[in-house]
């Protein structure tokens, strides 16, 4: 299981921030006509704080991965607020990642939210990183704001030590301190870094955790490359299925230029040694075969096998001896090739091949192959081919 799921705070004593009491008092005594806006940097624990404190509530969560236009909000929130709770619980609407409400596809969503805040008696809490945008100004007038400050690195170190103890992992303070400082208060990132440093029952010495390239995608990559637990590898992949806020935008997990597959393919050679590289690439290339089968048959069930071979398939390719353990940098290379690049060859050569193909009634592909040895006779035939200076230069090379 992923540490970030396993060590979600369950009650107020487990919260790392100090502002949670304000959230608690809003839950105890909601202010009519107002909603609570919880602001803070990514990974500081906004949603975690709310869900930990509201564990006795029946919660309706509106998050960024669902449509939040006027109609959707109306029907979801309307139904939720008008029905009595099944379990006699108090109710709460949590609008996660409010700043991700999009102007176009979620049209009317913000206005509808404002209307609901004004009319309903069910408490509403929203979370956001930053609401510095005009479109939020009307809604902001209805907000009680609490800003969560990131926990200090000392506090995070204590927390990580606690996790290590529970996991039975031995550690040094220096190792944890390094992770905590690099996280800059992002507890989620710290937990991911910790989990990807675990090797057996101890921690690896990691040279540097790079801040610039951090993002959900890279954290997932690190987990897949470092873990030997197939379930963790699977979960690391699954996390990417949902669009998450404040990360580089990698919308497509399984296909497209920025898909996880290309990232794994690009980095496996730097992460693994020897036969593990081959085993991993064998599994990655099999997912490509599966993609082809999906395309031809339209049978999407194959995607579940793609998931198995990308996550666990790469994670299990390594053995103890061919993982590059130390020093280890979580700096991944972005995939360099555009998969559609094949036809962009050296442009003059391409022109020459096109001309030969046209004037000798053959295909471009055939002409390209023949070019390797027929240059001398092409040069002799200026009249027929009417070579341009740049083409002549290429032919004479």
């Amino acid at each position, binding site marked *: 299981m992923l540490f970030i799921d396993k060590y979600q705070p369950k009650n107020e004593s487990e919260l790392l921030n100090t502002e949670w009491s304000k959230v608690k008092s809003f839950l105890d005594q909601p202010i009519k006509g107002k909603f609570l806006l919880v602001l803070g940097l990514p990974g500081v624990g906004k949603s975690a704080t709310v869900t930990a404190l509201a564990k006795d509530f029946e919660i309706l969560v509106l998050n960024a991965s669902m449509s939040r236009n006027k109609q959707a909000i109306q029907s979801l929130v309307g139904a939720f607020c008008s029905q009595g709770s099944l379990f006699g619980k108090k109710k709460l609407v949590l609008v996660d990642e409010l700043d991700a409400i999009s102007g176009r596809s979620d049209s009317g969503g913000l206005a509808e939210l404002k209307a609901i805040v004004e009319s309903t008696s069910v408490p509403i809490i929203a979370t956001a990183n930053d609401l510095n945008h005009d479109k939020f100004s009307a809604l902001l007038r209805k907000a009680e704001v609490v800003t969560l400050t990131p926990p200090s690195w000392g506090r995070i170190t204590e927390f990580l030590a606690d996790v290590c103890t529970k996991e039975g992992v031995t550690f040094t303070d220096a190792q944890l301190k390094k992770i905590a400082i690099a996280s800059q208060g992002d507890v989620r990132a710290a937990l991911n870094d910790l989990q990807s440093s675990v090797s057996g029952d101890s921690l690896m010495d990691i040279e540097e955790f790079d801040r610039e390239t951090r993002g959900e995608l890279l954290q997932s990559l690190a987990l897949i490359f470092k873990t030997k637990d197939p379930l963790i590898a699977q979960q690391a992949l699954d996390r990417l299925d949902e669009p998450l806020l404040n990360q580089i935008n990698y919308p497509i997990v399984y296909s497209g230029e920025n898909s996880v*597959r290309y990232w794994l*393919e690009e980095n496996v*050679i730097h992460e693994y040694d*020897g*036969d593990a*590289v*081959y085993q991993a*690439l*064998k599994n*990655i*290339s099999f997912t*490509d*075969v599966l*993609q*082809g*089968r999906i*395309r031809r048959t339209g049978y999407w069930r194959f995607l579940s096998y793609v998931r198995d071979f990308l996550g666990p398939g790469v994670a299990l390719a390594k053995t103890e001896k061919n993982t590059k353990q130390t020093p280890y940098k979580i700096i991944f290379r972005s995939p360099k*090739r555009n*998969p559609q*690049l*094949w*036809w*962009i*060859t*050296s442009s003059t*050569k*391409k022109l020459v*091949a*096109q001309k030969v*193909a046209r*004037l*000798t*009634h*053959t*295909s*471009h*592909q*055939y002409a*390209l*192959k*023949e070019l*390797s*040895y*027929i240059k*001398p*006779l*092409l040069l*002799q*035939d200026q*009249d*027929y*081919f009417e070579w341009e200076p740049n083409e002549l230069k290429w032919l004479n090379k």
Partner: protein
Amino acid sequence: MPNIWTEKYRPQTFDEFAGQPVIIKRIKAMIEQQNMPHLIFCGPAGVGKTTLALLIAKTMFGEQWRQNFLETNASSDRGIDVIRNQIKEFARTKAVGTDLPKILLLDESDALTREAQQALRRTMESYTKTARFILSANFFAKLIDPLKSRCVVFKFKPLDFDHIDTIMDKISAKEGFTIDDKAKQLIYEVSRGDLRRVENMLQTASTITKSIEVSHIQEIASKAEPEAVKEVLELAAISKNFSDARKKLLRVMMSEGLSGLDVVPAFQKQIWGLDGVDDQKKLKMIQSCAEAEFRIVEGADEYVQLEALLANFAQSDV
């Protein structure tokens, strides 16, 4: 008048045409009766498919063949929309100076997707009054059944040594060079009955010498196989340097314009010649080539398959 021999010696009459006697006989009869259906010309490269289509057009339209004949190549003009528009525009108007239908040669039509072939089938039906299609293809099986059923199918065979020998003698007499029997035999083997390649190799050799020997042909044949691909293979299989092999492969494919289906067969050919690799291992490497080629034919992205193949070659012991 072109100097390149593949054009200079392209047959201008049915009598000059080498091989395929049965096909020639039937085509001539169709033209005489002014009743030519849609045709499929099927067979490997360089056996006369395009030449025969050109001959049909020249015989039917005489001087005006260029206006009434359109040649497009499915693998070069990649966008089906381009083909569709170009074809429709050409096919819907009447031929110039004759009541006969125009002729459209669609080269490498087996490279078209199934959807494009379906679209083509409708176009063929809509314009039968004004146009006839000749679909040339390397692989009959890649054409969809509805297309096959609308056409008369001709399967071309690779030229045998006697045909190629005759042609080489004819050209050497006209161009004033000599060629010994061993060299002829090697040209035949390397070209595998592809006459275009035979003529290109002959002409290249004749720029070096006027008395062609087997060594000249060997030199040209080795150039025809990209040397760089061999280096990629050696980096992976001998130096065990997967990282460099992978980088070089990408560069070679880009600069030479090679596809995965060019690279794998090139690997396959050169594996037996690798120095210092055990024969049993070579056999396993070739098995991996077969698997990679199958996957490329079947799969989506060839580069990842090639990477996996190289990583396999670079394994410490296969």
